[in-house]
């Protein structure tokens, strides 16, 4: 029985993500002595606010003794008197249940008479008997204000006179605004807000919208915690796990599309899998997804839930809502009035009702859609069938068609973005290395490359070029407003291992990501733009480089060669990457001596406690073998532990693994630490600074330690994660001394 939830929650096997939020709220709930701000938990419909609150309640009920958790879910349409009695009953039952460690007390339905007996029997020493008695007296005297104040004041009174204060958890707080009261009666929202900001107890309040009550609270000392959709990885994990439970075959690529389409909303995600299960249909391609999605929207659980949540008072509502959700950006009250010929008050009421349902926001007359994409599709479906007379099948077909087009376009975007990013990442690893010139000269490469092999370049070092140390890459758009053509980015750095004005260099890099090769038009466009762009770099050397995903036409390649512009296609790029990354032992630095073959070791660390010590142990073995002294090995181990902790901390999911690659070269040990997340790397990390004579800052030392212990530390943002590169040189072998 221990650990059982007091309030209904979904089965653990169907609950995903949110562990960080639950842990955070739990920790904050128990920090009663620290006077931390209260929490306002906001989030769109079905994001899991209730589930989070109830799971935190369960954890607080069974896992600590410093606060008494009291959970209360508001119901709209109650009278003040009914709310007051309900609130007192819930508070009293849950207080006794916690104190007596008896969850059944919280679940039992009680009349006021029975509650009086219960508190007398079980909580005689507390304030509860007095609270319940005062409620009866106020009710008998028909004093609504006294009833309400006694009820909302109960948590404070219980907290002031107990060593364990109440931690109040209010769910659906926006419904508090819909507690009805006689025109001359007390206003429940105002009284509740007054009790909450009194500061005598801590609370968390969840609601769909920032209603007048929550707005009033937010102005006080309160922290807002927004519950958005599950992260893509979490949503895909959830879909995968549910598919496994229901024995469905799925394609992970399609599940990624599903996670995006459904905005990570847990309810939509569950409904999709249930729909697939009901239909006996696997989710293997985008057509499966589109069919299931449209079916869910038109006649499934999702459509049913949306129908209940989006309360429309007639077709006029539907017209305005459709206009709002299909408007580009936002629309305005004036525009809607002109378009639909509605009166000011009528429109105002409609918009207010939509805002309460979190479907639109109205900021000074600017109306913006606030619902999600699924809600938008639902409104469009309703509009097309009810107002335009289309059949459900017709609209469903349109939804499927749009989804297929959207998915195709989204995949195309990814491919396009990926290639440019690859080039940009490669440039950041140039690092002053030498590279064969043939990788930058497409005509020459084409003559030497055959059947996957590159014939030996004769002429030794004459066939090499020195790449710069790149200090930053940026898009050229800011410097060439209004220009059309392939994107150009600029890599700024230094050459010849010297960081002075004479060795400053800018590479203007044009990348063509298309299914056609670079043609003469592309080349002329780049040459013209490069001529303008180089005006920004008058005093420094400028290198022009064109990269074509599908290569170059003969004419384009000739022209580039004649102009002295570097030209590289995908094959050259791959070989260049291989030379720079995969085998640093073949890199030639300072003088260009060819070093011996590097040894590489790879380790994958699971996301478990102390797994970084496995990495440290490996570093010790490899470092010893390479001839590092004990102190250097200690430094490598400590830096590597930091890098691993950083990688785990910034992984997208808790279960993420960290991939390590040790590259043991003649003169250095390079360790790549890569996660599958969107870690902030060096930029996003809080960095601490040692201040002479003062106590150091407590947190944020990871990056400083790595930098202080290693010879080089780099942070590289990758498409699928972040890589930290740690380099330690063997003593006396730095800068290419062999």
């Amino acid at each position: 029985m221990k650990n059982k939830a007091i309030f209904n929650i979904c089965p653990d096997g169907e609950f995903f993500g949110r562990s960080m939020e639950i842990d955070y709220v739990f920790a904050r709930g128990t920090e009663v002595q620290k006077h931390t701000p209260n929490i306002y938990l906001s989030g769109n419909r079905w994001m899991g606010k209730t589930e989070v609150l109830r799971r935190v309640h369960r954890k607080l009920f069974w896992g600590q003794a410093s606060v008494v958790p009291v959970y209360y879910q508001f119901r709209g349409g109650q009278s003040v008197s009914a709310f007051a009695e309900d609130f007192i009953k819930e508070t009293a039952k849950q207080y006794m249940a916690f104190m007596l460690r008896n969850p059944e007390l919280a679940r039992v339905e009680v009349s006021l008479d029975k509650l009086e007996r219960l508190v007398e029997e079980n909580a005689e020493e507390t304030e509860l008997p007095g609270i319940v008695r005062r409620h009866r007296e106020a009710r008998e005297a028909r004093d609504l204000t006294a009833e309400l104040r006694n009820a909302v004041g109960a948590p404070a009174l219980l907290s002031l006179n107990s060593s364990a204060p109440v931690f109040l958890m209010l769910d659906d707080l926006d419904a508090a605004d819909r507690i009805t009261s006689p025109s001359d009666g007390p206003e429940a929202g105002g009284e509740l807000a007054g009790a909450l900001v009194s500061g005598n107890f801590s609370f968390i309040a969840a609601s769909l919208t920032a209603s007048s009550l929550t707005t009033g609270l937010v102005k006080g000392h309160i922290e807002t915690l927004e519950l958005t959709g599950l992260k893509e990885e979490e949503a895909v994990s959830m879909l995968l796990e549910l598919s496994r439970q229901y024995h469905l075959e799925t394609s992970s690529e399609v599940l990624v599309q599903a996670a995006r389409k459904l905005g990570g909303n847990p309810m939509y995600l569950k409904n999709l899998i249930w729909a697939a299960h009901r239909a006996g249909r696997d989710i293997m391609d985008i057509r499966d997804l589109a069919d299931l999605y449209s079916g869910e929207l038109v006649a499934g659980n999702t459509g049913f839930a949306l129908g209940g949540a989006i309360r429309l008072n007639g077709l006029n509502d539907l017209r305005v809502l459709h206009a709002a959700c299909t408007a580009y950006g936002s629309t305005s009250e004036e525009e809607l009035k002109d378009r639909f010929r509605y009166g000011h008050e009528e429109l105002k009421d409609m918009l207010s009702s939509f805002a309460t349902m979190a479907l639109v926001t109205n900021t000074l007359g600017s109306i913006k859609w606030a619902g999600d994409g699924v809600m938008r599709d639902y409104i469009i479906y309703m509009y097309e069938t009810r107002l335009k007379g289309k059949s459900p099948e017709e609209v469903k077909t349109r939804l499927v068609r749009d989804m297929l087009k959207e998915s195709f376009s989204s995949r195309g975007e990814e491919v396009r973005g990926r290639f440019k990013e690859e080039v940009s990442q490669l440039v950041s690893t140039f690092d002053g290395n030498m590279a064969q010139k043939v990788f930058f000269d497409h005509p020459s490469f084409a003559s030497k490359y055959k059947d996957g092999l590159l014939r030996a370049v004769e002429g030794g070092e004459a066939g090499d070029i020195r790449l710069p140390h790149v200090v930053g890459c940026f898009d050229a758009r800011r410097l060439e407003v209004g220009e059309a053509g392939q994107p150009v980015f600029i890599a700024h750095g230094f050459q010849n291992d010297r960081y002075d004005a004479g060795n400053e260099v800018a590479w203007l890099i044009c990348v063509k990501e298309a299914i056609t090769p670079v043609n003469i038009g592309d080349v002329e466009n780049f040459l013209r733009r490069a001529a303008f762009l180089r005006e920004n770099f008058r005093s420094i050397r400028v290198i022009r480089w064109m990269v074509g995903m599908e290569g170059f036409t003969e004419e384009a390649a000739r022209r580039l060669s004649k102009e002295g512009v570097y030209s590289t296609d995908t094959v050259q790029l791959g070989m260049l990457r291989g030379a720079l990354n995969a085998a640093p032992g073949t890199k030639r630095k300072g003088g260009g001596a060819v070093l011996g073959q590097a040894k590489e070791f790879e380790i994958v660390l699971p996301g478990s406690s102390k797994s970084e010590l496995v990495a440290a142990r490996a570093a010790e073995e490899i470092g010893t073998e390479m001839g590092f002294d004990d102190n250097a090995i200690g430094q490598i181990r400590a830096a590597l532990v930091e890098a691993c902790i950083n990688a785990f901390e910034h992984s997208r999911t808790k279960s993420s693994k960290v991939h390590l690659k040790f590259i043991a070269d003649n003169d250095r040990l390079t360790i790549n630490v890569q996660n599958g997340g969107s870690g902030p790397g060096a930029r996003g990390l809080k960095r601490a600074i040692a201040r002479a004579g003062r106590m150091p800052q407590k947190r944020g030392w990871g990056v400083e330690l790595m930098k202080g212990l290693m010879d080089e530390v780099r942070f590289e943002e990758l498409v699928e994660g972040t890589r930290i590169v740690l380099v330690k040189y063997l003593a006396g072998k730095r800068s290419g001394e062999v």
Partner: protein
Amino acid sequence: MTTGQRNYRELDDKVVLYPHNYINDIEGEKLEDMCEVFLGKGLKKFVIDFSDTEIINSIGISILIGIIERIRCAGGTILFSGLKKVNLDIFRIVGLTNVIQVHPTEVEAVDEMKRAGGGLLGK
């Protein structure tokens, strides 16, 4: 009188703590808890001897800083001893060596504490 177990040693009004070979969040918190226990018992002179400690990570560092602050806040004194070279480097990087005395051995740290009495509030 000397009493003790394997992870601490009481020497009259002083206590020497011997942390784990890897100080991370968990081990750091254990150390923090031990300090709290001894402060609760009225002991205010602490030596942390790191002779067995191979690695201290940044979270461990943050906890050690908290421990120093906590002990000083309670009017106590604290010294470090037995640091391996790499851990001394780490303490230098974060600036801890500017605010706390570090002695080569536990014996030297304890002697220094005896010699200075209550006058060891900083370096």
